[in-house]
Structures are given as structure tokens and as C-alpha cells.
């Protein structure tokens, strides 16, 4: 071993978080007796500037070559103390941390003696580990000057525009034929009553016009490998059976096409042809042929249709595109809860029960009824409409797949729907069955005031059941007005279920590809819910919009902007320092048995010839340092930097010394 180890140990009070439970002086005295410990001291807040100064001075004065801090979790302040160690002149990887707060004092508050003893044990283990640490140089890797955005709803659009504006080449991948996402399905938006298309389409056009954005619609991400700064992404561009460069969006193919299908964009309330665009303002305005429905009658290829443009080709294959990007933003949005599973409300059993999104299409100008709200059963205009709030939200019934969280948008869009009805159908009375009206945003409460002022009626009670009058198809909505304590059985012409928002199915595939995880409610898990809601624990992967949790459009745009900013930082810096935690093969010991090859999911290990001997070799760039190959190697030939066998074994030995 190199020169004698002189380790400095700094025990933190963390105010009363640690000092309030354990006996700090007793711990410091004990620490001084440990082998290789040259200096031990305590301070109220070691992570503070004076605390870090204490470390730096101690290194100089005591000529230390190793540092251990006993305080909070390394996941919190390891970077802080590594920098302090470096500034003190010691290699930052000669630093180690004992977690005596989150995993000791905070969880053993009523057991001061045991917590003190455990703190001593944890410090003894970290000192043993520090004694075996070796200096390492952080790996600096270049960062590809490009970013990938998955999903082109308002979140993906906003993120891409911000990235592109900051000069970053952005690949925007959308699985639908057009960008716009759920927002393009809305008619008006609360609380300003802006028309959704009017504020969204300009941004969609900006996306198409931006030379920094390469837009890939009707495409899906198939595979992602690599790491921050160097992601290799495989994208499948599903075939539209139309050559995008040749198609000018004239729509003649659509006119002549004899096949019609329910349009997914309109939730099936309006037909579309086999050759179609989801909605008139689609971006890109390129037609797609739904090959499952197309009967190959060739009418669309005829002269009076596509004719000489020759944009249509029934045999056009899917295309695979590979791109290299530095960072990735996931913006996969949301779906609606399958409210049919709440049988007591009779969705899909009674004609005049619709969901909030279906109501948006009905009242939308480009919708199936040209914006005229009608009852599906008889086409008449409803004079009384019931709105069922919390339809599947704030509901613990897992059997029905209901969601425990508040979906945050339904109160406000139901108020908006109520306003639109009062405005469009004179004499129509909207009844909102609510538990709490959550009007928390800017100008939201004023909007609530306005709707009540205009004549919206509010009944404080969750709807228990809906039954239908078989002759008139009117709906009997039963709820208790809990403010009066009376059971209301109200006959309504129509009912709108403000159903919950839920994570999309496709997000699960993306989650696996990017090794993300879910929070208990099923949305994607952020790095920190309060302080870092747009990053993830996978370096270089960020979240934008509803995929991280329910939020309305203003919050989605703010979140997407934050994700774009965070994602652009490594790219603008041009390089990123990676922890030098990777495997190295000791060529003398390696017998070429290739056990390690099978262990590595990243293909970082391969067999190479070194003067006629077959030796395993680790590609530093690909290796992520998980250690799976290291501990499988039968001849112990693989050394895991910063987590070597000696380091871990010394920790175990220290652990077992019951003093």
C-alpha cells in the first residue's frame, strides 16, 4: 500500500437532527481510537460553508489523505463534501460518508443508546472503507449536441421549442399522425376561455418551421442505449403508406376514399376515411392510410385524386432511424380513466352519459356536431346537464381501477363546460355535483365566481347512481345534497362524467427503456417531488408535463420549460463528468472464461486477444459500474473501481467487530 493512511472524521450535529438523539462527544472520542484516524472533530452543520472550511483546514493542518463525514445520506451531500475534500487538496474519491441521520437518528429516535452505538459502528465501517479507497480521476465525456423529446403534446411541443430556441438540434418523436396531443382535442381552455386551437396551432406551426427540430410523427422509440451525453436511440417511423415529401396535404385521396372508420381523435364520435388526417389543423399536414381498414381499391391513386403526385404506395415499409442525443425528455402525457368500470354511472349503457373529453368534442367547432351540443340519443339540445365531478378520482376502489389522487383539472374544465352551456344554449341549466371545487390557480376562483354568477348550480354531494328513463332516455341522477341532508333525484337531459386522468399504457415501454420507475400512483417518478420535479434518477433523462403527474396546461408549460432548461445544461456545457465507477480487468488473472460477458446487459465486456491469450476487456465508456460482472468473475480478475472487494470486505470486517 502507498504511504500511511491519515483519515479525518467529521461528525455533524445537523442542529438537533443528530445531536438531539446521539452522544456526539462520546462518538468523537471513540472515533479517535480507530485505526488510520489522524483527526476527529464535530460541528453543528458540517455541510455549511464554515463546516466545509473546517474540513479544508483540517486537511492542511493535520496533513490528511482521507476524509469521512458522519452526517446525512450520501445521496444528499456526497457531492458537497467531495468538492470540499478536493479543495483541501485530497482526491475527491478518497472521501466516504456515514449515514447517521436518515438511517439512524431519524429512525431510532426513542433509542439514544442503540443509536449512539449504531453511529459508532457505521463510522467504524466507513473509516475501514476509507482506509482502502484509491484516488481516481472523474471521467469526462463529451455530450452530443442534440436532444430527444418523446411525445408531442403541449408538453413535448413546449420543451422542443425551448431546446431548439437555445440552439440545440431536437428530435421530436410522436406516435400519432399529428402533433398536438390531448390539448388539440379541447375546444376552449380555462380560465381565459381562449380557444385551444388558436393558442396551440401557432406553436405547432413553429415546431414544423423550426430548423432545429426534426419532427418524426407516426413514429415510436424502439430502443435506447448508452448514457448521459451519449444516448443511441432507435426510432421506428411507422409507414403512412404515403411519401411525406410528395404529399401536399390536398386531401383528394380522402375525398374519394370509400372506407370510413370511427375517428380516434374524436373518440369515435365522428367518422374518418381510411386515408385521413386526425383533424384539419394537423401538423404535419400529411395524409396517412390506415392499412387495417384500407381495401386497396386504388381510387386514391387515380388521376382525379393523388394522380401524378404519386405520393401513395401500399408497400411502403416502416423505416428505422438511429440518432445520437445528449439528453432525453419524456413527455408522453395522459389518458382518461375507463369510467365504464364504474357501473353505477352507466357510461356506455345509457346513450346520454358522456365523458368530459367527449363533451369537448361535442362542443368543439371541428367536432362531430360543429359545436352544437346535442343529446346522443335524439339529437336534441339538452336543457339540463349534470356534471359528475371526481369520477374515478379521489377514490380508493382499486377493484374498479379508480385512482386515489385528485386529477387537478376536472373542477375547472367542468366550470368551463357549465359556462359554455349557459352561453350556447339559452335556458340550459348546468348542475355540478361536487365534493370540493378546487379552483387553486391564478384567476381560477374568479372564474368559479363568474360561473355561479352566470347561473351554474352546485350540489355538494358525490353522485351515487344514474338510472335512465327507457322511453325518454333522460337520466335520473341520484345524489345527497349533504348541505341540506336531502336525497336529490334529478331528471337530467344529459350527464358529463369528469373522469380521472391516468398514465398512458405506452409510457410503460418508455419507462423500461430508460430504466425509470413509477411512483405509487403509477405516474413516472421524479428525482425529487419538490426540489427537482423535472429530472429523474437516470442521468440525462427528464420529465415534462402530465407523465409525471396530473397538472393543468399552465403547469405543464412551466414544467416543460424547466425540463428543457435542465436538459440543455449538459449540452451547452459540452461535457459531463461521470463518476469513475467502472470495471477494470486484471489481465494476469483473467482466464478468458467469458462468464462476465453474459453478466453485462450493456455489452461493455468483450473477449480480446492479448498475445495469443483470450482476455476479457471492459469498454470504459459503456460500463455503468453496477458490479454484476465483478462479483461473478470466478477468478476475481475484475476490479470494481471505488467498490473494490477489499473496500467492501474491510467494511464487513469492521461491521463484525462487536466491541
Amino acid at each position, binding site marked *: 500500500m502507498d504511504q500511511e493512511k491519515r483519515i479525518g472524521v467529521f461528525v455533524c450535529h445537523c442542529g438537533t437532527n443528530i445531536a438531539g438523539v446521539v452522544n456526539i462527544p462520546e462518538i468523537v472520542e471513540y472515533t479517535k481510537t480507530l485505526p488510520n484516524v489522524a483527526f476527529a472533530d464535530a460541528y453543528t452543520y458540517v455541510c455549511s460553508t464554515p463546516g466545509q472550511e473546517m474540513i479544508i483546514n483540517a486537511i492542511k493542518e493535520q496533513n490528511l489523505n482521507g476524509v469521512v463525514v458522519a452526517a446525512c445520506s450520501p445521496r444528499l451531500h456526497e457531492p458537497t463534501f467531495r468538492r470540499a475534500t478536493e479543495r483541501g487538496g485530497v482526491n475527491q474519491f478518497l472521501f466516504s460518508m456515514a449515514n447517521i441521520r436518515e438511517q439512524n437518528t431519524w429512525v431510532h429516535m426513542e433509542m439514544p443508546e442503540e443509536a449512539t452505538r449504531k453511529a459508532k459502528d457505521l463510522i467504524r465501517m466507513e473509516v475501514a472503507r476509507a482506509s482502502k479507497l484509491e484516488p481516481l480521476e472523474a471521467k469526462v465525456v463529451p455530450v452530443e449536441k442534440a436532444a430527444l423529446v418523446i411525445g408531442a403534446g403541449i408538453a413535448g411541443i413546449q420543451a422542443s421549442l425551448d431546446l431548439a430556441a437555445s440552439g440545440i438540434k431536437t428530435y421530436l418523436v410522436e406516435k400519432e399522425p399529428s402533433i398536438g396531443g390531448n390539448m388539440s382535442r379541447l375546444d376552449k381552455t380555462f380560465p381565459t376561455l381562449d380557444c385551444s386551437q388558436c393558442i396551440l396551432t401557432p406553436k405547432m406551426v413553429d415546431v414544423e418551421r423550426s430548423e432545429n427540430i426534426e419532427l418524426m410523427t407516426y413514429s415510436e422509440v424502439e430502443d435506447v442505449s448508452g448514457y448521459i451525453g451519449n444516448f443511441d436511440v432507435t426510432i421506428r417511423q411507422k409507414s403512412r403508406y404515403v411519401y411525406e415529401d410528395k404529399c401536399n396535404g390536398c386531401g383528394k385521396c380522402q375525398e374519394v376514399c370509400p372506407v370510413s372508420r370511427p375517428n380516434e381523435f374524436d373518440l369515435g364520435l365522428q367518422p374518418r376515411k381510411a386515408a385521413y388526417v386526425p383533424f384539419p389543423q394537423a401538423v404535419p399536414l400529411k395524409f396517412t392510410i390506415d392499412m387495417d381498414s384500407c381495401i386497396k381499391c386504388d381510387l386514391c391513386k387515380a388521376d382525379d385524386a393523388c394522380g401524378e403526385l404519386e405520393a401513395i404506395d401500399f408497400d411502403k415499409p416502416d423505416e428505422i432511424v438511429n440518432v445520437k442525443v445528449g439528453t432525453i425528455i419524456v413527455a408522453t402525457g395522459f389518458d382518461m380513466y375507463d369510467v365504464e368500470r364504474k357501473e353505477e354511472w352507466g357510461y356506455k349503457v345509457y346513450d346520454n352519459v358522456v365523458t368530459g373529453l367527449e363533451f369537448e368534442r361535442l362542443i368543439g367547432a371541428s367536432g362531430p356536431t360543429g359545436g352544437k351540443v346535442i343529446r346522443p340519443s335524439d339529437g336534441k339540445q339538452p336543457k339540463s346537464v349534470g356534471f359528475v365531478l371526481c369520477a374515478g378520482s*379521489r377514490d*380508493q376502489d382499486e377493484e374498479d381501477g379508480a385512482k386515489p389522487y385528485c386529477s387537478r383539472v376536472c373542477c375547472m374544465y367542468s366550470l368551463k363546460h357549465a359556462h359554455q352551456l349557459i352561453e350556447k344554449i339559452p335556458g340550459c341549466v348546468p348542475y355540478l355535483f361536487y365534493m370540493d371545487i378546487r379552483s387553486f390557480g391564478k384567476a381560477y376562483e374568479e372564474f368559479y365566481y363568474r360561473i355561479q354568477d352566470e347561473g351554474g348550480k352546485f350540489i355538494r354531494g358525490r353522485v351515487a347512481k344514474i338510472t335512465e328513463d327507457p322511453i325518454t332516455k333522460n337520466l335520473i341522477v341520484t345524489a*345527497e345534497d349533504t348541505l341540506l341532508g336531502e336525497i336529490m333525484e334529478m331528471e337530467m337531459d344529459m350527464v358529463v362524467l369528469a373522469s380521472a386522468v391516468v398514465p398512458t399504457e405506452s409510457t410503460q415501454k418508455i419507462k423500461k427503456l430508460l430504466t425509470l420507475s413509477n411512483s405509487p400512483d403509477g405516474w413516472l417518478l421524479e428525482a425529487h417531488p419538490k426540489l427537482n420535479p423535472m429530472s429523474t434518477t437516470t442521468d440525462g433523462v427528464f420529465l415534462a408535463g402530465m407523465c409525471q403527474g396530473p397538472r393543468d396546461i399552465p403547469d405543464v408549460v412551466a414544467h416543460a420549460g424547466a425540463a428543457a432548461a435542465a436538459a440543455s445544461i449538459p449540452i451547452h456545457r459540452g461535457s459531463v463528468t461521470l463518476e469513475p465507477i467502472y470495471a477494470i480487468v486484471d489481465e494476469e488473472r483473467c482466464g478468458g472464461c467469458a462468464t462476465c460477458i453474459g453478466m453485462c446487459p450493456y455489452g461493455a465486456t468483450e473477449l480480446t486477444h492479448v498475445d495469443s491469450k483470450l482476455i476479457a476487456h471492459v469498454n470504459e465508456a459503456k460500463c455503468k459500474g453496477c458490479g454484476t460482472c465483478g462479483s461473478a468473475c470466478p477468478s476475481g480478475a475484475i476490479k470494481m473501481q471505488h467498490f473494490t472487494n477489499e473496500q467492501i470486505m474491510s467494511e464487513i470486517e469492521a461491521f463484525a467487530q462487536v466491541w
Partner: protein
Amino acid sequence: MATEGMRNPKHEQLGKTVLDPNLIKEVEAHGLDKARMCYQCGTCSAGCPMGQRSGLRVRKVMRKAILGMRDVLDDPDLWLCTTCYTCTDRCPRRVVPTDVIMALRNIATREKKVPMSMIKIMGAIYKTGHGVPNNEENAKQRVAVGLPPNPPTTHSYPEYIKDIQTILEVTGLLKIKEEMEAESQ
């Protein structure tokens, strides 16, 4: 604020709402660990078939149980629930309101506030093992359809009745029955 002298003794009761926080714990001791989680949405009251034709409001029973208003145990409406469990299947907080009502009835029974009609049913079971015992006319009906006059239950094997009686004694139900019958004389 009424000045001191002004208060009429009759009004002494005003403002003396007595809440017993243990009531909900007693209810939850009947295997209902989430009874306190009700958020007063009214789904139970609205869907209750008995509520349509009586003063029974399941939501109010839940509110009193959670706040600890023990007078709910004296409320005759407590015994109008037909235990159809419609409210239980629809409750978004899964508090099982029907079983909360049953638990409150159990507590009321121990405080001898149970209707005599229930006590009568227990009496029949104590004597014959059946809540609705056989009778002459029915025995004839049984023979007419080719069945023995008495079913192979405790009616044909009365030696099992003593086990039922033991269970009723051990659980303390018999004592309540006897005391209530004595008091009602």
C-alpha cells in the same frame, strides 16, 4: 357574549356538545380499520333504498360515529338499515358503512338498547336452534312434498342445541337477553 347574570339556567345546556373520541375506536375494533376515513361525500345516503322512505342518512350516522356523538346509539333509525351493502360497494373511501352500522348496533346491544324483535329471534334460536322454527302446518306441507315432517337440522338432532346455548352464554348475549326481558316486565 352574554354577560354573566343574564344566562337563564335552562340554557346551561347550550354549547355542551359532548364528543367521545373513543366511539370510532370501538367501532374500528370490529375489524373495520378504515371507518374513520369517511369524507362525507353522501354517496351512501343517496343510494340507500331505506333512505328514500325514512330519515335514515348513512352519512349522518358515519359523521356521528367519527365525531363521537354517542347519541347515535339511541337513534331508532340506526335499526332501519336492511344491510343490503349497496353503500359499501360504492363508497370511494372503502369505509364499509354497513358494517359501521352493524358495529354501532353491537355497541348499542351491549348497552341494552337493542329492539326486542331482535331479542325474540335470539330466544327462538336458544330454544330450538332456529330463528324460524317448524310448526304443525308446515310439517304437513313437508310430508306433502315427500319430505320427513322435521328437517335433519337441530329439529331432528336436538342434542346439538346445547352447543348453541353454550355459545350464546359465553358471548354474553344470553345475559343481555335475560336482563332486558326482566326489565321489560
